[in-house]
């Protein structure tokens, strides 16, 4: 019994330490993987994530636009993008140095990403970070 308890506690400690709860902002998707990536570590406190998930039922279409990993979901319509702009504008009022991390599925065509970039610009936010895979095996030369 004692040794089993030891193992259970060890497993609990492992999961507590290894779990990244911030990853709730990053739903699973295939982000772009540049050749010799210069992507920097992702830990900006003044940045908020916009996820553009591909629609599995309709290739090349955006399934969902998620602000902050599900706290706000916006359809890819004129009204949805206008609502996104309004939400971002409100966030920028509270956080003037706000930056947006655009995390889009690599398979999406640019004309599905561009309206979201426009919505970000319309909110007066021009500092945007493109989320990409880090260089495997360390920092790019």
């Amino acid at each position: 019994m004692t040794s089993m308890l030891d193992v259970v506690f060890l497993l609990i400690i492992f999961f507590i330490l290894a779990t990244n709860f911030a990853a709730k902002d990053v739903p699973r998707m295939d982000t772009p993987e540049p050749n010799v990536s210069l992507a920097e570590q992702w830990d900006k406190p003044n940045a908020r994530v916009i996820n553009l998930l591909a629609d599995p039922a309709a290739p090349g279409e955006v399934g969902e636009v998620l602000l902050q990993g599900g706290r706000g979901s916006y359809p890819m319509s004129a009204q949805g993008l206008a609502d996104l702009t309004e939400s971002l504008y409100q966030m920028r009022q509270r956080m003037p140095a706000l930056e947006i991390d655009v995390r889009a599925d690599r398979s999406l065509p640019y004309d599905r990403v561009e309206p979201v970039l426009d919505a970000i610009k319309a909110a007066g936010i021009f500092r945007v970070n493109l989320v990409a895979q880090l260089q495997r095996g360390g920092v790019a030369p």
Partner: protein
Amino acid sequence: MHHRRHTARDRGLQPLNLTSMLDVCFLLLVFFALTASFAIDEGVLPTELPDEGRGVAVDAPPPVEPIRIVLTPQNTDGVRIEVQSVHQPVPANSERLYLMLDSWRFDQQTGQGLFDASNPVVIRVSGAVRWQHVVDVYNAVLRAKYTNVGIVGNERDA
């Protein structure tokens, strides 16, 4: 002389019942096992969106001719990368684009190169080009150490 080890029962104590604690431990274990989402290998490439209404992003007088990189779709998922600023062969991929841009960048030590690192680079993208290629090309330009890079839709005037 025989010494007998005194148990908790001998001392009038009940043995510790671990069942409920084990239940809690297993519940915690299941919770963490199910919700665990391990750190992902992602990072960000910082950029500045072009703002047509906010003035020109480039503040280097006199105005300089930007390096224009045009991305158009090729086949199903491919991309054609074309540099329009100077007459050069069309790069086949982002690696060749990087090598080309890197060789064009002005090097103060050797005094060679065509463009300053602050020279604007405009990536014009056709709507059907995959986001993967857009980010890949943007990354290649950053790799070549250009600092003033913008991404615009192909139908827009850079």
